[in-house]
Structures are given as structure tokens and as C-alpha cells.
């Protein structure tokens, strides 16, 4: 640990000396995203070598891991004991997944990565090594800084260690496929939501809806009968979910020239947005991927109208808008608590002057 | 909670009891959720925990203020809070001390004292009340709406006391104050129903109002005098084994009679007798329930196969019955026994707002509670509301949309019809 801490302090000192910013990277698996491109004036701090599982107690339902560890490695270890990360973090390093705050398809059932974080150790912009949260599921001592850090993209510091909650792996998993359009799929989601079904993932794209069921053997069998659909072969299904989880594949990586990809988070029950070309819907329709002509800025407003928010995925930034008013000011002040000199860079919000 | 009583109260006979209750309260706040006045007013002082705190203040500082009294006044004494208190605090004892001491220390302005005293006097004097109700009924069409509501609409019918040949048991029936004037049918129904199963009831000469009205207004000495008079009237026949005890057709009175022992504690002449009689007091539902098996055949004509039920009734259990006496489900069983279909209303633990003289003294709150209760009762789709206490009966009639009866009346009608049928067949 000392080694990482002193390396971090050195990077900060270097940046200070040369008037630069510090950017934290893990495995660089998100390097393809425009806001993860490194600027010329940045000192890069890598967590890549800070690896290993610190503690894993299957009966306590948690795992504590160093930030540079590969998510896949953690999952393998869990699988041996019949457990898994229900929220399905994106591939890459554990720290990177936590800093991005992304969750995979399983978040529909198990909640987001933010909810699954029990504790973090953080090196902040003032060079302090801090620990928040812990290793127990119930813990309300102090402000929940551990979850504040989730999704901060390195702006509040470098995450060095994370504790995640884990779940027993469901005995049976099955994926069903339905031929239906966007509107129909969204209406279907509205009907599914209030029902006690063992659903674990929802993904619609290109005229097809994929539903994943997970749970006890018999519960899944019954659920399958209740919802109908065409059963998908196991391997193919696994490949599909892997792709959705990694945002790997056509909708995300092959954006046509002159177009921009947007991700909208909207309240459940929101009808089709009728804007641009809809590429995919996730998590019961609360996440929408749409393609609009590059330079079209009306998306921000449209998202706001339906009570959600937008995230530009390609092209030039800012890729996300900072919140306005009192909340925006609070965010700014919070950042100053962790990064008093304003040396940390990262995240889709663009850089403040 | 810890309590340190002011020296002013040292040696007072109520002190030990109230200290015990106060110390039992752990301030968890569970009770607040079940309190109707807290729900309406949203100030903890208008909830049980706050009122307990006020009494604690009173006991510790020896001071009573107008605002304390106001919060005591707003309490319905419905005792819903007691039922939800895991720590077993007997709230009604606490508030009784608060009321009595504040009455004693005299913080009310003259007009209020006069109004409350006057109300107690009117209500508990049958002759006066009868006259007032008579006048009220005559002028009812000309009265302002608020007042007109409070005057019972129907004139009482003439009725006869049924004679029971060779009774298997004999009981005193509490005559009470308001009920014999505005609804003598209730006691008639009691006599009829009990008569059918061979139980004879009678009023005792010299007995009267149970004293609850005065007691809840903080007029403890008047209440004690009434209790003494009643015990004196009942005791000889009871002691001689001629009467098994006292039965009351208003659950509020029954609940109060149960506490006669405490009320007359320390009374050298009647204290012990009061305690014994208090224990031998029943709400009429308890007595009737003892013979439920015999009554049940009386519903048979209504539903020959024993399953089908005729008539939908919703039973609004008075607080004194469900929270005070802890009698739950008994009346419903009796009504079903004679063939009524009993439906359940939402929020059936809430007070209707009547609470004795409360409906007059705290009109605004009482009316809000009464109207709400009226709506929830109507929402059940029942054709009639049954209750077990005269105060609730009048209040629900005033603010609700459905006709309201004492459950005894409903049972008595079916029983009487059945008796008639049997008699006709014999002929």
C-alpha cells in the first residue's frame, strides 16, 4: 500500500510542479470513449499493477479487491464458490468499473453497482489515503462517501480498494427472445414490472426483445411458461449478455459518420421518445440508446422533458451536463473537498475553467 | 423514563401509580401512530407521548398551564395508544392524573369551568335531559344545523320489561344517564335477548349514572360520589347472592365500572365493595356471549341451511370496548350467529370522535373524525352500522350516512321474530 500512496503523491507533486493535471487509469478498457482520451497536459497514474483480492468471505457475502484487479478474475474466483456479481460490472479493472459507475444488464434485478459498493479506499487530490464504508452490508457510520465516489470518473481521487457485495449464483438461467418493435417491448416491460417474476435482464434491439430469467430451477421454468417467447440457446445467450455488458458490438462501437450516439436514462414507463433512430433499450426501458445527427443539441432538452437525462456517447464534449443551481454548486464544492487544487481530470463533464 | 416528582405532590395517593406509568414509558413513539388527534393535528403534544410528557412536566415541576390543559382536553381517551404500546403504559391512568390535578389547580377561566360543569350536570340528570331533548325535538327544524345534529331524531317508543319465568341468573343492569332518555330501546333489547336465554336483569333503586362523564372532565370527587351511590344500591343484593353482578349496555360505562376499585380506593366504607363489584361487571356482549350457543338457533329462519346470511352490517367497535375492555370480535360473532353478514371497515381501530362529552366540547375535531368515520363505514357497502355505546351511536348518526343501531337491537329483532314464529307454530 505504501508504494501506491507514495507513487500517487509523487504524481500529484509532478503535476503541481509542471502545471499539469492527473488522470487515473486502470486497464484502460474504456480508452475508446471520447472523455477517456488523455490530454497532452496530463500526468497519467496507473492502477494496473495494484492487483489482488484482499478478502473474500463467501458466507459474509462480500469481496474486497484492489483496484487494478481484473473484473473477470474476481468473477472466476466467485464462481468457484457459487457466487457472482449480480450487477454485472463492465469488463476492465475493478477500480475502473467503480469509478465509471456502470452496471450491466443484471442491475435491472440486483440494483446498480452504486448500491453494491460497501466500502472504498481512496487516495484523494490532497494525497490523503481515506477509507469509507466497510465490509458489512449494513453500515451507516458517517456520510456515505463510498457511494459518492462511484461514478466520479477519478475526479474525487484514485480508488485503491473496493468492497462489493456478492450474491449466490442462481441455479437456473434462461434467455427468451421475442419479435417485437420498440413500443411493444416498452409496453411489455410495463406489464412485467409489477409482477413477481424471476426476471434478471431486459434488452431490446432491432426488432427483438431478449429477456433473461434467473432463479430456482422450477421458478424459472414457471416464469418461462408465463412470459412466453422463444428460448435462446445457452451459449448464444451468454454471448449476447456479455456484449451488452461490455457495450461491445454494433450499436455502441460502429457509429455511422455524421451521426452521434446518445444514452438516455429515463423513468420507467416512458413511451418511445420519437427522436432520432432508436438502437437499443435496456433495463425495462429505462436506458435508451439513440442515434441522432451529430451536432443536434435538442437531446438534452428532450431528456429533461421526460424526467430523465442525456449522455452524449460520441463526438466532442461536454458529454454530460453538470446539474444547475444549488445542486451544481454543491457538486463543485464537493469536488474541492477532495481535490482542493483542482488537479484531477476525468469524466464526461468536460473541464471546468 | 426517569421521573423526579415535585415536593409539592409528596404523599399524594395518585403519585406512586403515575410515577410507575411514566417510568414504564421508554419514549419509543410507537403509540403516536395510533392516535387520532396526532394524525389530525401533527403536533406530538396532541399525541400520547406528548401528553405523557406533559404529565411528567406537571408532576416534576408542579405547574399547570392553559396550554397543557388544552392538550389534555383534546385527548379522546380512546386508549388506542395503549393497545399499541409494547411497554405496557396504561395511558388513561396518566392522563386522568393530568386532568384531575389541572382541574384541582384551577387554571381554567371562569366561563370554561362553568360550561364544563354545566354540561356534566345536564347530561347526568335524566329528568333535565329528558326535558331538553323533548324541547330540542320540538324545535329541531328551527335549530342551526350544528345543534340539530345533536338532537336524537326519533321519539322513544313505549316499551315493556319482559318477564322471565324462573330465571337461571339475575343481574343488575346499569341504568346510566343519557341512554335511558334518548334510546331506552337498547336496554329493552338487552332485557329481551337475555330473557330468551333465561337471564333476568333489573335496575337497582338509587343507582344512576356511572360517573364517567364527570371523571373525564376531571371532576373526580363528583364521580366518586356517583360511584358510591351505585355501589350502595347494588351491594346488598349482590352480597346476598341474589344478583350475580352488574351488566352495562354502554361499553363506555362498562369500562368505567371496571375501575371502580381504583376510583374508590381508600374509601373506608365502600372501597372494598367497589373493587369486588368492579371485577364482577360485564359489558353486555360478554354476558350474551356466554349463551351464544342458545341464541344461534334464532337466526335459523333467516338462513335455513345455516350458511346464507341476510343483511349486511358493519360493526364499529367503540374504543371503550376494543381498547378499554379489550373485547375484540365478540359482537361480530354474535351478530353472525343470528344471521347477519358482518363486514369489516378500514381503519377500524380509529375512534369515531364521540368520546362522551368530547363531541360537544371539542366539536371541530369530533366532527372531522365523525365525518371520516362515516365515510369509511359507508364505503363498506353495509346497510346498517352497529355499535355498542350510546355516545358513539349518537355521534355516528349525526355525522354518518348510514343508520346506526346498538347491536343488541339488531340481535333482539331477529330473536323476537324467531320467538314469535315458534310461538305461532305452537299455536
Amino acid at each position, binding site marked *: 500500500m505504501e508504494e501506491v500512496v507514495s507513487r500517487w503523491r509523487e504524481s500529484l507533486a509532478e503535476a503541481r510542479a509542471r502545471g499539469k493535471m492527473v488522470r487515473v487509469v486502470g486497464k484502460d478498457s474504456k480508452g475508446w470513449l471520447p472523455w477517456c482520451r488523455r490530454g497532452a497536459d496530463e500526468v497519467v497514474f496507473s492502477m494496473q499493477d495494484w492487483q489482488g483480492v484482499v478478502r473474500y468471505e463467501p458466507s459474509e457475502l462480500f469481496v474486497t479487491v484492489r483496484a487494478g484487479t481484473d473484473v473477470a478474475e474476481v468473477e472466476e474466483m466467485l464462481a468457484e464458490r457459487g457466487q457472482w456479481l449480480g450487477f454485472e460490472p463492465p469488463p476492465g479493472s475493478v477500480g475502473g468499473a467503480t469509478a465509471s459507475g456502470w452496471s450491466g444488464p443484471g442491475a435491472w434485478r440486483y440494483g446498480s453497482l452504486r448500491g453494491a459498493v460497501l466500502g472504498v479506499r481512496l487516495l484523494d487530490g490532497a494525497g490523503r489515503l481515506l477509507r469509507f464504508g466497510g465490509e*458489512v452490508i449494513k453500515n451507516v*457510520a458517517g456520510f456515505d462517501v463510498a457511494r*459518492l465516489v462511484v461514478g466520479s470518473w477519478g475526479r474525487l481521487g484514485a480508488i485503491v480498494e473496493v468492497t462489493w457485495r456478492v450474491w449466490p449464483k442462481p441455479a437456473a438461467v434462461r434467455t427468451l427472445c421475442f419479435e417485437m418493435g420498440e413500443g411493444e417491448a416498452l409496453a411489455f416491460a410495463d406489464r412485467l414490472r409489477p409482477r413477481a417474476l424471476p426476471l434478471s435482464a431486459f434488452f431490446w434491439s432491432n426488432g427483438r426483445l431478449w429477456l433473461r430469467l434467473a432463479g430456482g430451477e422450477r421458478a424459472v421454468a414457471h416464469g418461462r411458461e408465463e412470459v412466453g417467447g422463444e428460448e435462446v440457446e445457452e451459449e448464444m445467450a451468454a454471448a449476447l449478455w456479455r456484449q451488452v455488458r461490455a457495450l461491445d458490438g454494433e450499436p455502441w462501437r460502429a457509429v455511422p459518420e455524421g451521426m452521434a450516439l446518445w444514452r438516455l436514462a429515463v423513468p420507467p414507463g416512458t413511451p418511445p421518445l420519437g427522436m432520432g433512430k432508436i438502437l437499443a433499450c435496456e433495463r425495462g426501458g429505462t436506458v435508451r440508446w439513440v442515434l441522432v445527427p451529430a451536432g443536434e443539441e435538442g437531446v438534452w432538452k428532450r431528456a429533461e422533458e421526460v424526467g430523465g437525462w442525456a449522455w452524449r456517447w460520441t463526438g466532442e464534449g461536454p458529454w454530460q451536463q453538470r446539474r444547475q443551481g444549488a445542486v451544481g454548486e454543491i457538486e463543485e464544492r464537493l469536488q474541492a473537498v477532495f481535490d482542493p487544487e483542482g488537479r484531477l481530470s476525468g469524466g464526461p463533464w468536460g473541464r471546468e475553467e | 423514563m426517569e421521573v423526579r416528582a415535585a415536593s409539592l405532590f409528596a404523599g399524594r395517593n395518585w403519585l406512586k401509580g403515575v410515577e410507575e406509568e411514566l417510568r414504564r414509558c421508554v419514549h419509543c413513539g*410507537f403509540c403516536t401512530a395510533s392516535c387520532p388527534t396526532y394524525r389530525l393535528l401533527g403536533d*406530538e403534544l396532541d399525541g400520547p407521548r406528548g401528553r405523557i410528557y406533559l404529565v411528567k412536566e406537571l408532576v416534576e415541576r408542579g405547574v399547570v398551564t392553559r396550554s397543557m390543559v388544552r392538550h389534555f382536553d383534546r385527548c379522546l381517551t380512546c386508549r388506542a395508544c395503549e393497545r399499541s404500546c409494547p411497554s*405496557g403504559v396504561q395511558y388513561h391512568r396518566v392522563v386522568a392524573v393530568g386532568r384531575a390535578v389541572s382541574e384541582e389547580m384551577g387554571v381554567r377561566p371562569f366561563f370554561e369551568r362553568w360550561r364544563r360543569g354545566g354540561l356534566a350536570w345536564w347530561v347526568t340528570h335524566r329528568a333535565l335531559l329528558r326535558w331538553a331533548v323533548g324541547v330540542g325535538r320540538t324545535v329541531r327544524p328551527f335549530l342551526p344545523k350544528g345543534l340539530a345534529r345533536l338532537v336524537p331524531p326519533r321519539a322513544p317508543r313505549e316499551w315493556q320489561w319482559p318477564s322471565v319465568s324462573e330465571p337461571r341468573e339475575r343481574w343488575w343492569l346499569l341504568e346510566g344517564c343519557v341512554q335511558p332518555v334518548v334510546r331506552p330501546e337498547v336496554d329493552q333489547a338487552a332485557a329481551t335477548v337475555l330473557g330468551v336465554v333465561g337471564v333476568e336483569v333489573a335496575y337497582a333503586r338509587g343507582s344512576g349514572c356511572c360517573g364517567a362523564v364527570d371523571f373525564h372532565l376531571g371532576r373526580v370527587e363528583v364521580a366518586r360520589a356517583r360511584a358510591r351511590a351505585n355501589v350502595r344500591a347494588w351491594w346488598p343484593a349482590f352480597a346476598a347472592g341474589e344478583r350475580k353482578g352488574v351488566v352495562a349496555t354502554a361499553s363506555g360505562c362498562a369500562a368505567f365500572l371496571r375501575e371502580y376499585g381504583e376510583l374508590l380506593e381508600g374509601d373506608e366504607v365502600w372501597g372494598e365493595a367497589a373493587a369486588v363489584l368492579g371485577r364482577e361487571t360485564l359489558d353486555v356482549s360478554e354476558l350474551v356471549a356466554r349463551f351464544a350457543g342458545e341464541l344461534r338457533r334464532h337466526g335459523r329462519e333467516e338462513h335455513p341451511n345455516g350458511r346464507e346470511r341476510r343483511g349486511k352490517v358493519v360493526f364499529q367497535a367503540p374504543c371503550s370496548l376494543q381498547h378499554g375492555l379489550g373485547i375484540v370480535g365478540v359482537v361480530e360473532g354474535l351478530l353472525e350467529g343470528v344471521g347477519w353478514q358482518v363486514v369489516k371497515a378500514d381503519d377500524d381501530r380509529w375512534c369515531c370522535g364521540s368520546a362522551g362529552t368530547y363531541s360537544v366540547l371539542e366539536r371541530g375535531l369530533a366532527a372531522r373524525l365523525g365525518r371520516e368515520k362515516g365515510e369509511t363505514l359507508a364505503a363498506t357497502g353495509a346497510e346498517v352500522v352497529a355499535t355498542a355505546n350510546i355516545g358513539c351511536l349518537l355521534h355516528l348518526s349525526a355525522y354518518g350516512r348510514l343508520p346506526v343501531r346498538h347491536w343488541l337491537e339488531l340481535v333482539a329483532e331477529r330473536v323476537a321474530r324467531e320467538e314469535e314464529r315458534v310461538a305461532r307454530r305452537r299455536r
Partner: protein
Amino acid sequence: MGRDWEAMLSARVRAWEEGERLFRVEREETLAQLRATLPREVLRWQPEEVAVYECDGLPALRERPLAVALPRDTAEVQEVLRVCARLGVPVVARGAGTGLSGGALPCRDGVVLSLARLNRVLEVDPVRCWARVEAGVRNLAISEAAATFGLFYAPDPSSQVACTIGGNVAENAGGVHCLKYGVTVHHVLEVRGFTVDGEEVVLGSTAEEEPGFGLLPLVVGSEGMLAVVTEVTVRLLPTPPAVECVLAAFDSVRAAGEAVAAIIAAGIVPAGLEMMDRGSVAAVETFMPVGYPKDAAAVLLCEVDGRPEEVEEELPQVLDLLHTHGAREVRVARNAQERAQFWAGRKAAFPAAGRVSPDYYCVDGTIPRRALGEMLEAIAEMEQRYGLRCLNVFHAGDGNLHPLILFDGSREGEWERAEAFGAEILERSVALGGTITGEHGVGAEKINQMCVQFSREERAVFFGVRAAFDRDGRLNPGKMIPSLPRCVEYGRMRVRGGALPFANLPRF
């Protein structure tokens, strides 16, 4: 040892004074101003009127506020906050006052802002599966409103009949079903309210994710120190169609603990998994005879829910595990009514302690489940040492312990002894890899133990976070985050008392 209790107490008092000195306001003057600006129905200031607000569910800590404000709607809340901001008066928000850590303990020269009158359920949406409610709505009232649609609100603290959703958000309340369903933070979508200066804020989003930093989880569990919450949107879940509840009696607490570990190890995540020891069972049985076996050393309640097939699969497994781990008696609730009774007993367990003792002090440490046996032995030893009885109630599934220390506040020195007893349990929890509070919050009560769990730098970050929302620290001052002098003082005292030899153990 008497010295140390005194020292601890005086340290606490001093710290409050410290906090208050910042806000020493001209009482008469301020009150006059408040009375001039706020309607009479909204303000209480007479001594007996504010008395009941002097404490929450932890009556050992008391302080009378300058005034109590009871706004009737959101606009009035803002009005009260603006007036207080203008006058520089500290504000303490209050829900139902069921908190167990003195979180709603008033500030002597401050205003208590009660949200109890904001008690309307604004919307229950059966398609989007959420409920929008005002902050003063009771936890149980949400589930009751949702029940008609076959939905429910999952976090169910034992105090759910009375506690408000605003208070739940402030404390990140847990419940008896949170092993499977999670705690408040997992079920709140959006929170609306005001900063202490009366500026409106919306945190979180009904779109389920929040853009930017996670401010929603920061405010959830912030003990009313970051914002005053006026409106909350919570997620509703479909009511599981099948539920089974098992009651098992054990001859030793350790055996019961092992059964718990075995159930989880078998890959079952029960909806609820609760344990009570002999003393708490006896207390509950006097409140409502629900039929807990009184002679058992430990009683375990285990609930499994879900679809009928799931429950059918899991229930026999659970029964089997209970038997093989030495359960003496295993009873499955025969119907919904009996199940409700099993739970009613458990949920009334704390106040039922009032039946066996005038006062109780509820401790709230969380430990890794495996350390349960060790902890219980330590507590048994402490009972001897402190000369006080302790009942044990736990959320066994997640290692959240609630030792109930029985004492009599009217006896000289007993509360101080109980407090030190509790402090030792908490510090032992930290040493075992746990935390000083699982769900009741730090409040005024565990503020000293924060010095043990967090470093000086971490505490500095907490102060910073709070200042980001509330520059002067006017909202609920003196809670949760201990000042440096306090920690120095407390550290010195602990070294002298020698109660804790393991202060330097590595944590986490």
C-alpha cells in the same frame, strides 16, 4: 472507574457547548422575530410545549430547543428555513422522533423543524412502480397505500408503524428484511427538499440513475445534516406471492448462529433472518403472547419468500439446516395471521424491554457474522463487569446486533454505566471488522466512537462534505462528526481507562 464516566459525560457536554457557542443567539430577540414572522399554528415556544421535543427515542439525551416549528406544507418549510437563515439560528429536522441515536436531539438555541404534518401520499404509480410521498408519511403507510396494487415498500424498520420516510432517508434505515431486499438507499429514487438556507434541491432521479456524483446516497444516511427532505419517491416491489416464516428454538445462541451461517452458505438469501435471546423473548411474551418458546436460549425467525415454486424449494432446505444444526423445536407459521404475530413480537422487542426495566439502551453495532459467538461471549463478560443486564436482539442475517442494556435512569450513575457498556460493545465491533452503527445512525450518541472508526483525515472530509451543503453547519449541529479536540480528549480518556487495548488494530 467512576472518574471516567464523569470525564466522558463532561466531554460530551463540553462538545455540545462547543458546537453551540458558534450559534449562541440572543434568545429573546430571536424568539420575538420568529413569532413575528411565523403564524401561531406553526410555532411552539412555551416551555411545556417544547418539552416533548427535547429528545427522540433515546430519552437519556435531552435538550430543550428555543422553539419548535410545525409547518403544514412545503412552502412553510421553506419559509421557516429562510427565517432561521436570516437570524442565523440552527435547525434540527425531526420526523416521528423514533430515532435511537439522538439524531433529532435539539440544539439549545435552535429551532426544531418537525415534518410530521407533511403526511400526504402524493402518488402511487402501479405501472412505474413507485410512490411519491411527503417526508412525514409513515413507513408502513406507504406499503398500506401500495397494497391495493399488489406492491410494497421493502425496507421495514421495526419502528415502521411510527417512523417517517424522511427519518428513514436521514438514517438510511434498515429493517428485518434487508438482507435480501437492501436498505433505504436501495429503494429511494429521488429526494426533494431544501438546503439549510432554504434553497430547493432535487437529488437522485426517477430515471433510476443520477447524473454526476452520487449525491442521493450521500444524503441518504446523512442524519439530517445536509438537507431537509420534504418529498421522497420510493421504488415499490411486487408483493411476493408466497411467504413462509419459520420459528426455531435453540439451546444455545452459538448453535443458532451456526444455523444462520449454514443457511447463507447454502446459497439461500432469506427475506428475513432474526434472532432473539432468552431475555428478549421473555420481555416480548409479556407484551403479546405470540408463542415464542420461553425456555429456549435463542429463538430464530427465518422467512423465505418469492414465487410459490421458489419457496417450496427453499423451505425444506431451511428446515433441514435448522434441524441439523441443533434446533430443538421448529415451527412453520400456519397462516398469514400467525406469521404476522411472529414478526409483531420481534418488532416490538425494544420497547417491550420497558416491561422488565424502566429504561433500556439500544446498541447498534454490526459485525461480520462469523464473529457472532465471540461478540456474545464478550457481551456476557461485560454484563458482569458493568453490573447491568443485557438482552440481545439481532438482525442475524446481516450481523447487525442490537444489545439492549437495561438500566434505571433514576438511579445515580446507571445511565453513565450503560453508556460506557454500549461504547465498549461498539468499539469491539470495530475491532472485529465491523462498524459502530448498522442502521440507527451516529447522532449525538455514538459521536465519540466515530473517533475510533475514522481517522482524523476522514473526519476532516466529513466536515468538508457537510460544508459543501451547509457552510456554517447550522443544520443539526453537533452530531455525527466529532471535533478534533473531542477526539483528542476521548483518546486520552480511553488510554487512561484502558477499556480498549486494541485501538491500533488494522481496520478494513
